[in-house]
């Protein structure tokens, strides 16, 4: 198969776009696409200071690399979770992230959950009601809390995450299966900071397939953590991705169409603001000051304060 733009051999065929590209043209195409979506969804400008949440994985490191390449002012935030899983998962992901930042002279914030809260994520999950058997729930909540805090304290214009189209389509699939109105109402390329204490959140990779991001990282020579988080095995998000990939194999573009049709339906007003009743009840948590819809302290502070 030949590259659409030159006579070189293609290294990737994106069936959903009917587009095959050689290495050089693919490495040009991905940042150009990201720039296109940054503008299309009014994500941010070159004048904004940005914070990128980096895990050491292919998506977040590639996102940071692309922003750096496009000339944006982006600092990184790495959150140490204290996950070992027999593969020194957190240690290795931190090493790779620090090496990435050092090679490019980028500033990286490092927040260690075990140092700051005296417990690793698995320990927190074992101790608390929320976490029993569900470390991913504790992990997600902790990361959201820390990302919002660092984003706000640092005065960043936006917090960027490396969610790709497969992440978004899988989340949309799960939210639709359960008709989670609040999540559906909030899901999109940009989540505005429409309450004091919230940082604006954006997902510049939301239109790029996971396979494209893995190819970008590999072809660009970005060293990322290849091993899966030990706790992600058997997760619903992976199961949904597999189901959607089965659909994609028969109908190229099905995942993209699912997500884009959702965004269009949202723009057409299919979801009313009352689909997200929690948004009306937000108030500052008396302990950390972050907005919460729970009565009293936010779920994160309650989890930290909860004794066994």
């Amino acid at each position: 198969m030949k590259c659409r733009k030159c006579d070189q051999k293609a290294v990737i065929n994106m069936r959903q776009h009917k587009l095959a590209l050689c290495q050089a043209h693919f490495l040009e195409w991905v940042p150009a696409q990201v720039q296109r979506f940054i503008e299309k969804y009014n994500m941010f400008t070159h004048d904004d200071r940005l914070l990128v949440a980096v895990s050491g994985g292919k998506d977040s490191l590639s996102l940071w690399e692309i922003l750096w390449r496009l000339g944006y002012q982006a600092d990184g935030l790495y959150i140490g979770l204290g996950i070992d899983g027999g593969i020194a998962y957190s240690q290795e992901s931190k090493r790779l992230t620090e090496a990435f930042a050092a090679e490019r002279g980028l500033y990286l914030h490092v927040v260690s959950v075990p140092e700051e809260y005296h417990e690793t994520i698995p320990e927190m999950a074992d101790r608390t009601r929320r976490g029993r058997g569900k470390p991913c729930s504790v992990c997600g909540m902790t990361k959201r809390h820390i990302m919002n805090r660092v984003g706000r304290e640092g005065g960043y214009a936006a917090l960027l995450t490396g969610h790709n189209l497969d992440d978004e389509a899988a989340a949309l699939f799960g939210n639709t299966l359960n008709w989670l109105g609040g999540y559906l109402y909030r899901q999109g390329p940009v989540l505005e900071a429409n309450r004091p204490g919230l940082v604006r959140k954006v997902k510049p990779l939301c239109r790029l397939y996971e396979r494209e991001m893995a190819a970008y990282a590999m072809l660009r020579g970005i060293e990322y953590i290849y091993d899966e988080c030990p706790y992600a095995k058997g997760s619903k998000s992976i199961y949904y991705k597999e189901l959607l990939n089965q659909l994609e194999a028969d109908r190229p573009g099905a995942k993209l169409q699912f997500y884009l049709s959702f965004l269009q339906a949202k723009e057409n007003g299919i979801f009313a603001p009352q689909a997200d009743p929690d948004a009306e009840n937000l108030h500052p948590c008396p302990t950390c000051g972050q907005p919460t819809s729970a009565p009293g302290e936010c779920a994160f502070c309650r989890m930290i304060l909860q004794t066994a």
Partner: protein
Amino acid sequence: MPVKLILRGKEYEVKPGMTLRHSLLKIDVQPEAVLATRKGQMITEDEILKDGETIRLIAVISGGNQ
């Protein structure tokens, strides 16, 4: 000689002469879920796999909490 496909340390064997896409479907691996390399170079799914060669597959799906 069969073609060897390696994914996350696990080895699969398929007959030579098939396309990469066909070979992946034969071993129940979703083509969307992997990238394939031959001698370190990424290849597209229409490539015909050759006698005795080794193709390394790179899993692309990651998951967990959003």
